[in-house]
């Protein structure tokens, strides 16, 4: 039977639950330094969980990363910190002292979930080894995140966002082109300038945590979840792994037919930007040829059929680039719409943010960074009954000028 039938007398009214968010019944302690664990706890907080963020006296390193208003460093005005930690309450604890460790344990006594990505040595000093916590708090769900995970030959390796991303295969598989059609050295493996593997790990850990919440309802028991950045970014490469699993082929970043199948399906420079052009099957190709004015080359035996286009993909790329360079992004987009082809122009962050679509969906939401207005990414998905909400600002680190913020050791 579906779990919907589990109705009982303790049901809240729908309105009350809506006001708190989907996860309003859950309490979380986060001891995170960086993006991964903070992001897991952010997802839980943004959908209603009560989250207490624990910081050491030196503060979360994200407070010193920015971006800051006009680039001026301020631990209470780091854009990344405020993004990751809105909707959380905060406490500063020196967990490596007895009193600090005790205070942390008091928080854990009433928590459902503990999420952390601090080094195992710090956790040990705080008396918070996962095994110890599982013994002391049998119903607690403990999620540990690290570059390579606990256990296994690489578990003691030092790592960060870049190292884990590289070891997950993501950097190798990041496609090159359009500048280097067939040269593996012109475009080395690439990492995007953002915390990609930590965010993927944080989102995956949020799934793991909610799984354990469901599991606890069945077993009455907590769980230790151990997640690595490397594993999380490896898991999302399911499509690129298939050629290796079936036949041993290597997927590489040249966007060639062995990598991605039928052609064309790549992106190219145009007059004022870049555009993707997908016309992989003959039915699409014929439409694209028509859109280009049926040039003789497109209808020739070298390009008219799928096998021919796969065989001549480097020349195909050059010919299509030559055509695309004669068009603007808007022209290409409307050609795509008119001919039912998947053609789409590159949007800068500015163009995306300014688009009617992103505005209409509130894809970006307002965030005050210090005294400066800014915008940050909003809900990663829209829940109709229990929407994402911004309920409180991130915890401050310099509470002396703010009577509303508790001193060190007390949850604000």
């Amino acid at each position, binding site marked *: 039977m579906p779990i919907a039938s589990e109705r009982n007398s303790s049901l809240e009214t729908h309105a009350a639950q809506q006001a708190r968010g989907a996860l309003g019944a859950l309490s979380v302690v986060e001891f995170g330094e960086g993006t991964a664990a903070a992001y897991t706890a952010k997802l839980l907080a943004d959908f209603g969980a009560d989250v207490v963020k624990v910081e050491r006296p030196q503060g979360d390193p994200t407070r010193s990363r920015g971006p800051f208003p006009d680039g001026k460093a301020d631990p209470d005005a780091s854009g990344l910190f405020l993004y990751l930690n809105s909707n959380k309450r905060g406490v500063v604890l020196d967990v490596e002292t007895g009193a600090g460790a005790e205070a942390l344990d008091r928080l854990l006594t009433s928590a459902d979930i503990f999420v952390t990505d601090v080094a195992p040595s710090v956790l040990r000093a705080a008396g918070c080894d996962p095994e110890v916590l599982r013994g002391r708090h049998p119903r607690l769900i403990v999620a540990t995140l690290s570059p390579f995970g606990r256990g296994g030959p690489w578990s003691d390796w030092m790592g960060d966002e870049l190292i884990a991303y590289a070891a997950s295969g993501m950097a190798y598989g990041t496609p090159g082109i359009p500048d280097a059609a067939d040269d593996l050295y012109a475009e080395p493996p690439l990492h995007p300038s953002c915390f990609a593997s930590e965010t993927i790990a944080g989102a995956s850990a949020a*799934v793991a945590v909610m799984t354990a919440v*469901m599991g606890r309802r069945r077993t009455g028991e907590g769980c230790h979840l151990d997640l690595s950045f490397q594993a999380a970014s490896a898991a999302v490469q399911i499509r690129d792994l298939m050629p290796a699993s079936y*036949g041993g082929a290597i997927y590489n970043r040249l966007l060639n037919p062995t990598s991605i199948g039928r052609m064309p399906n790549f992106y190219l420079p145009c007059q004022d930007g870049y555009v993707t052009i997908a016309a992989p099957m003959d039915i699409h190709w014929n439409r694209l040829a028509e859109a280009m004015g049926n040039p003789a080359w497109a209808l020739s035996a070298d390009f008219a059929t799928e096998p021919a286009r796969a065989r001549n993909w480097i020349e195909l790329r050059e010919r299509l680039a030559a055509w695309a360079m004669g068009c603007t992004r808007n022209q290409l987009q409307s050609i795509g719409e008119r001919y039912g082809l998947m053609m789409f122009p590159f949007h800068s962050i500015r163009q995306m943010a300014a688009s009617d679509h992103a505005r209409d969906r509130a894809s970006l939401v307002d965030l005050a960074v210090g005294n400066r*207005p800014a915008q940050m990414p909003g809900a990663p998905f829209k829940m109709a009954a229990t929407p994402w909400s911004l309920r409180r600002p991130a915890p401050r680190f310099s509470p002396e000028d703010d009577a509303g913020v508790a001193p060190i050791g007390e949850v604000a």
Partner: protein
Amino acid sequence: MSTSPKPLPLEGIRVLDFGQFVAIPFCTLWLAQLGAEIISVESSSRLTARGAPPFEEGQEGNRNASGYFNSLYATKKSLTLDLATKEGKRIVHELVAVCDVVVENFATGVIEKLGFGYDVLARINPGIVMISNGAFGRTGPMKDGRGLHSTVNLFSGVADVTGYVDSGPRIMGSVLPDPLSGTYAAFAILAALEHRSHTGLGQYVDVAMYEAMLTLIPEAVIDLTMNGVEPRRVGNRDRQKAPHGIYPAAGEDRWLALSIADDQSWQAFCHSVGRTDLASDSRFANAPARLENVEALDAEVASCTSVHDLYAMVAQLQAAGVMAGPVLRSDELLDNPQLDARGMVVSIDHPVANRHRHLGLPWTMDSLGTRSTRAPLLGEHSREIIIGLLGRTEAEYEQLERDRILT
């Protein structure tokens, strides 16, 4: 097949799955491994995944031998159904009454046209959780826009921070918008089920793939909207660490990732690769100097690393206290000793496609179990679902077959 004796966390959750391509199938693959029962609704007339390469050698085109399908549909059940027929629609409505979750990633509007919009399904089962996943989401002026991963990459803004120094935008690998939005869909389902356990009520969730990707770039979004700073593509460099990048190792297309945050690590690196001259080079004496001279630094580092064997160099650098790692190719993930030691590499037997390796869930659990069984043959579970789950008789089942409803 491998099944651990520990309790499966999502046992008892039943999902009606209209997924296609990668995003939703990836979402329900995770739920299946965690114990949920996934009923994949297939139709012989649109076998997109089953027709996609790579195939088992010698079985090209065999709809039970696609590696694409067998990877993404492992541990699920297959029900074939003609959704255009009245009886097919009735079966879907009966299934909705006994399911917890419905997932779909058709183009916007298709599920409503089929008669399975959320409003209809919620009248049948108020507890139903329904997830729609699409490139641009289900609302907004571009909601009808079609787009695969490259389109989503290019719209999301992520391509704006992905690229070589002062070069054009690049998209990320791994059709990432699909599995990343699938991961968020899985989280959304579990959050909605948590909500339902307190209220008895389900709800509708709209996942836009570009919004999933947008969560990767908060720094760039905030810097732009707060300070007007346009993103600059800087290759693999970092604004605080140097050297920070991917450098050639000995051999064809082998690469080392290196991330050095402090002077001590820099000294350790120089000594480890036998370049004491760099250790005393004033251009690289401290982090600000190394950032200032990053072009020269990267060239020197590349000349050091390109003569060393990748794995030997990584072992030596890690032992010396330097943050370094190999750039793995996708095919190396299945042989990776670390992922294997964590139980993530799973071998699954298949009667048509034989034995293949896959990557399982990226986390371990001490008190809860997972499972991985083979992907279903086309229509393999139709009888079990129609008779066993919906309670139709054998005679009714045969009639459905004769009427070509179960195709």
